[in-house]
């Protein structure tokens, strides 16, 4: 009975598809109050006064709190979990981030006050009565503008809005390589700002138990223990033993639910003050202006090549928008999750990257599906394509010529990472042949005859996931470890509960982890329950992000199972009157080697809990916990091929084909993996052609604050994907797995943009920034000579 490798149907889907999931907003506590949060309508303003007297007297209102009330109670600011140092060794600027703004608001949506009422309608109604005296000041939203000496300051003590000026790599070696290069290719590009848009808006319920002094926070989080640590220790000063954080069913996160948000602290603190549960649920428009955004880079890149078109050196200079405050992991995204990825799939010997992180009057920016790696992949695969164009070499050929060969692993990059395994030639070959890359010229001609511009684009990618060895990330500035935990509780009759520190918010852990456990322990999958998301139930865990759940969390489960089996062998040896060393465990049975004498896992478990006939020095019970700290990152990789047709009259783009060949290492459930790739591709395609968060440069207003203006990808925007996988197993975790959650979002933007530029290449187009909207494409076509007109 083996389920690993089989497309087992998702066990959680019955619950979700029949509306029986329990999301935070589905939870209601006795005597619960409702919070409505007043948010700044301005990008930048002084708060000259807040008069909440009338609101406080409105029907049903229990309290109105401001930032000053929280500060007076000793509430701390929202902490940042990663410290980055500048080139000159100085630490990044880390300005305070009070949960409710105190004397100044710094972005549209910055929380200013909270009205708490018996009903949400009453709280909302009363909020209109709160009078806030704002003194508007000039704002800056564009990261490059923010660095200019004339730019308004987000924090008066952060000169030039510069949070840090970081670099990685050997500049002297890069300069030397550029000096002897046969060819240098340069490009300026923008990585567009995105709004994450999880299907479930954020929500939080704070609760205080007067009798015990304990607090509970129900919240839409990807990592409840991280929230407990940050909020308990830094913001509200609640001992962790008195604080339980529950992240129940969560409807999508994509990174945006990793962070500790103000609303979590507000409802928990208010629950303690008012001695009643307090609930808050975001409206969609609040999500747009308060969930951490993603990307937002402005970059200059240069690639040096030798006479054989081999890459000699890469030089990258990026300005990264942090938004108005530092979100929990923001500083590491455009540095250690970005600069370290710039080798990509190539053995470029010298790489130098510098990143200036800047504050602006916008929503904080942090990790969003891929986090740094899509930005790295985009610039690298764009400059490689541009180099191919300038050298007159086919882009597939230029990549083949430059790949790190399959026999070169482990491969040490010049930007800190060591890749354990990979086979980039094979995935490129798989993708290009499945996409009929060779036939694209003919299809291009046929399209031209129909009046369409057709193009094909390739991107390869590498990502570092399975995040991450604690000592390594610690040396890079992480203020946390990144191991994972698991506890396996074998019950007296042989069914098993697995408590995992990973968190599932759509990824299907209840299925994948069950497959793993059912297989290893030789029990039916129905006998396995996966528990996650509650600090009162699970061991201390770091949650789910960076495609780490299987590689790190799954390995922790394996380690815990190893302990269960080891203990089971002792019990079985005793029952079978054999030596422990002679006991083998397979297919759910402990067997004396070479005999047919055996005990099932159930029999052993029963003995562990009813230890009448039991080894003398052994503890009863069969309940084991393991923590696993990975030895390295994992390095999924792959090749994507996109093919597009553009209507030159309107600029409308159609994605006619999309082919992916991914190397995720070993695969537990191919259906779930395909689903993850589909979702990632949808988001990557969204970034490339639809999504773009737009702020008004003059006023700092968020212009794309709803789905009327922010274009999310829909099913009919996407082609039918052609997927395939090729496995080079990870060498340092026992499952040989790498992770698949972010790949699509990492590789798709570059593949699609390369295809668009390829379609427009006959017109002399070098680059098109994302999102490639119809008007943008139409204008680019207008600006260049039309080959159709010339025919």
């Amino acid at each position, binding site marked *: 009975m083996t389920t690993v490798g089989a497309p087992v149907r998702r066990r959680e889907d019955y619950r979700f598809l029949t509306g029986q999931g329990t999301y935070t907003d589905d939870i209601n506590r006795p005597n619960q109050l409702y919070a409505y949060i007043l948010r700044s309508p301005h990008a930048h303003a002084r708060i000259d006064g807040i008069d909440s007297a009338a609101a406080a007297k409105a029907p049903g209102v229990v309290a109105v709190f401001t930032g000053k009330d929280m500060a007076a109670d000793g509430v701390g600011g929202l902490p940042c979990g990663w410290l980055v140092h500048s080139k000159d060794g100085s630490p990044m600027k880390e300005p305070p981030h009070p949960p409710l703004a105190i004397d100044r608001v710094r972005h549209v949506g910055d929380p200013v006050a909270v009205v708490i009422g018996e009903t949400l*309608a009453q709280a909302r109604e009363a909020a209109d009565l709160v009078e806030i005296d704002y003194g508007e000041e000039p704002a800056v939203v564009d990261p490059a503008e923010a660095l200019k000496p004339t730019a308004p300051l987000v924090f008066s003590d952060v000169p030039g809005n510069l949070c840090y000026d970081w670099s990685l790599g050997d500049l002297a070696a890069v300069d030397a390589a550029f000096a002897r290069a046969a060819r240098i290719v340069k490009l300026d590009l923008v990585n567009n700002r995105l709004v994450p848009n999880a299907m479930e808006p954020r929500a939080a319920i704070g609760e205080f138990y007067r009798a015990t002094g304990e607090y509970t926070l129900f919240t839409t989080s990807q990592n409840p223990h991280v929230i407990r640590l940050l909020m308990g220790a830094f913001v509200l000063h609640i001992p962790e033993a008195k604080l339980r954080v529950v992240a129940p069913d969560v409807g999508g996160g994509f990174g945006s639910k990793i962070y500790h948000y103000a609303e979590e602290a507000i409802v928990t603190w208010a629950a303690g003050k008012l001695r009643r549960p307090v609930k808050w649920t975001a409206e969609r428009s609040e999500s747009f202006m308060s969930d951490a955004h993603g990307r937002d880079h402005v970059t200059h890149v240069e690639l040096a090549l030798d006479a054989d078109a081999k890459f000699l050196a890469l030089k990258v200079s990026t300005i990264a928008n942090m938004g108005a405050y530092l979100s929990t992991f923001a500083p590491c995204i455009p540095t250690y999750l970005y600069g370290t990825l710039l080798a990509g799939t190539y053995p470029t010997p010298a790489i130098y990257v510098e990143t200036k992180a800047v504050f602006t009057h916008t929503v904080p920016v942090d990790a969003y599906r891929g986090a740094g790696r899509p930005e790295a992949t985009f610039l690298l695969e764009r400059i490689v394509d541009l180099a191919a164009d300038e050298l007159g070499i086919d882009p597939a050929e230029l990549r083949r010529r430059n790949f790190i060969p399959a026999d070169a692993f482990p491969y040490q990059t010049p930007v800190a990472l060591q890749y354990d395994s990979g086979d980039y030639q094979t995935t490129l070959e798989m993708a290009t042949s499945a996409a009929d890359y060779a036939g694209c010229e003919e299809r291009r001609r046929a399209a031209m005859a129909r009046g369409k511009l057709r193009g094909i684009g390739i991107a390869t990618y590498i990502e570092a996931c399975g995040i991450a060895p604690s000592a390594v990330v610690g040396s890079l500035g992480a203020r946390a470890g990144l191991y994972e935990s698991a506890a396996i509780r074998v019950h007296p009759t042989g069914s098993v509960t697995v408590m995992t520190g990973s968190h599932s918010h759509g990824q299907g852990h209840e299925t994948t982890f069950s497959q793993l456990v059912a297989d290893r322990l030789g029990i039916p999958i129905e006998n396995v329950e996966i528990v996650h998301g509650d600090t009162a139930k699970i061991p201390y865990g770091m949650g789910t992000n960076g495609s780490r759940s299987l590689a790190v969390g799954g390995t922790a489960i394996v380690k815990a199972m190893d302990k269960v089996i080891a203990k089971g062998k002792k019990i079985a040896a005793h029952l079978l009157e054999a030596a422990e060393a002679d006991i083998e465990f397979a297919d759910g049975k402990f067997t004396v080697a070479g005999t047919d004498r055996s005990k099932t896992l159930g029999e052993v478990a029963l003995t562990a809990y009813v230890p009448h006939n039991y080894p003398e020095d052994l503890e009863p019970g069969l309940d084991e916990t393991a923590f696993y700290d990975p030895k390295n990152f994992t390095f999924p990789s792959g090749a994507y091929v996109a093919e597009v047709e553009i209507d030159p009259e*309107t600029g409308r783009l159609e994605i006619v084909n999309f082919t992916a060949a991914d190397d995720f290492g070993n695969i537990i459930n191919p259906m779930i993996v395909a689903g993850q790739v589909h979702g990632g591709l949808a988001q990557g395609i969204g970034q490339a052609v639809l999504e773009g968060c737009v702020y008004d440069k003059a006023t700092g207003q968020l212009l794309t604050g709803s*789905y009327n203006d922010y274009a999310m990808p829909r099913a009919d925007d996407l082609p039918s994907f052609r997927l395939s996988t090729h496995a080079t197993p990870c060498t340092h975790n026992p499952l040989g797995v790498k992770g698949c959650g972010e790949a699509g979002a990492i590789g798709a933007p570059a593949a699609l943009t390369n295809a668009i530029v390829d379609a427009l290449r006959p017109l002399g187009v070098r680059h098109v920034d994302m999102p490639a909207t*119809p008007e943008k494409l139409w204008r680019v076509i207008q600006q260049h000579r039309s080959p159709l007109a010339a025919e």
Partner: protein
Amino acid sequence: MYEFNYHKPASLDEIANLLAANDEAKLLAGGMTLLPTLKQRLARPSDLIDLAAITSLRGITDAGDAIVIGAMTRHAEVNRSPVVKQGLPALAAMAGMIGDPAVRNRGTIGGSISNNDPAADYPSALVALNATVHTTKREIAADNFFTGMFETALEPAEIVTAVRFPKLQIANYQKFRNPASRYAIVGVFVARFPNAVRVAVTGAGPVVFRVPEMEAALTQNFSPDAIKDITIKEDGLNSDIHASAEYRAHLVGVMARRAVAACG
């Protein structure tokens, strides 16, 4: 959302009384526009008067050389109606391009034209097809109904009861969708009558408009070539983060030519 009183009267008379008694009352049809407006607290009606129970407002009637569509008829019903598909195929197709399935299953023709969103599809169909709007007080030619951005000829307490369309085989609607909202960035409805052609444009300007130059040229010679040199001035056209006035002006020409070509 602010609080309001909800009514679901059974007759148009009752509605008239309710409207007369409450200046701040609003009619509720499919709610696809009105409810989001209420949720965002952009409107504060004292009363909502739901038209859902007035059965006479719903349905599609074959009136020989015309089709009469009740105000409460859903977009999905128009899209699927055999009567419309046969007598006015371009209108059935247009209704199928509105929003998404949920919107089409709730939204109504009466709500859409009374709201008169500058990017809505129906206004172009009514104007191009020379339809007549029937209200509780009178009949209004489409040309006179859409008066400005979100403005119509409707008087306070006047209710749209139906829209009457002449049957027509040679007509086509070309829509260039806004990728975010799926409303029209530009939509052009071309209708060829026995001795006249009407071209109506939605999405491009503050309110639906006709293009007399194109109509004249197409009346002479009904082919895309006949209008290929006619340019639309960008002055007064809409301009936003999705499309500049210049781009919209250009799209009007493209969509018009495609509509003519699609008429066959």
